[in-house]
């Protein structure tokens, strides 16, 4: 338990988690802006999806979304073990969350390669522009969160994983997992 400070009080939240929370709020508004722009462009288009553009892989991405949600589930398990002080039980779910998250990002990358091959590019249509913008920004966040989780895994193994660092890493990953179903429904469906 954290010791009481000079004023007889302990801190409400680790600084790392607090900083990440502020960042996530800003990023939430970024995604909200992109979703809004997407809705307006979609509503103004004479037909949607634009003619001559490939169909987005709805089913495959739905399965990949389940992989991402499973990753979030394992991170919850790791979170619970961390707050119980059971660092040994935390290792496996944290590794599973990291592995499933990495699978999600790699699968998304392979999906992009296939779509580029079928003619969906940033400049081919407004669908292509928004698809790569929205999904790409999400992918960058996912990659950044995975790097933080990987560092957390290393720190756990070495025995100096702090609540602030782990809190920040898991908050970013939960944001990535939480915002994805919304993006999927908006962009793919």
């Amino acid at each position, binding site marked *: 338990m954290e010791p*009481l400070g000079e004023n*007889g*009080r*302990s801190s*409400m*939240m680790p600084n790392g988690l607090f900083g990440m*929370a502020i960042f996530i*709020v800003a990023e*939430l*508004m970024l995604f*909200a*802006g992109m*979703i*809004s*722009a997407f*809705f*307006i462009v*979609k*509503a*103004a288009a004479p037909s949607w999806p634009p003619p001559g553009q490939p169909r987005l892989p709805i089913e495959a991405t739905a399965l990949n979304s389940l992989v991402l949600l499973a990753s979030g589930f394992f991170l919850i398990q790791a979170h619970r073990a961390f707050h119980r002080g059971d660092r040994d039980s935390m290792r496996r779910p944290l590794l599973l969350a990291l592995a499933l998250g990495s699978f999600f990002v790699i699968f998304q990358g392979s999906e992009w390669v296939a779509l580029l091959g079928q003619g969906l590019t940033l400049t081919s249509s407004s669908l292509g522009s928004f698809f790569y913008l929205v999904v790409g920004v999400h992918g960058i966040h996912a990659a950044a969160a995975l790097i933080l989780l990987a560092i957390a895994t290393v720190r756990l193994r070495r025995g100096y994983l702090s609540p602030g660092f782990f809190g920040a890493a898991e908050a970013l990953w939960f944001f990535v997992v939480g915002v994805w179903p919304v993006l999927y429904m908006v962009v793919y469906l």
Partner: protein
Amino acid sequence: MLAIVVVAGALLADAASACTVCLGAQTEASRKAFVGTTAFLTFLPLMVVGGIIALFVRRTLAQEALDESRRAGDLDAGVESQG
């Protein structure tokens, strides 16, 4: 002189086509999208800020209660060690 400038300005002025909801939307679907996204972008930050304030209040109250019990525990331990 100032009056002439004001009158000239008033005569030269034209309606500004700045409102995207009124002037930018060409179809009913576009107009609805503009109105919907304006509402979404207006209320989302308010809900987020409200949620954060509620979370802070809840966590602060819980932390205060915990700290209070710990201080009371320290006090009791101190009295026992003196006794």
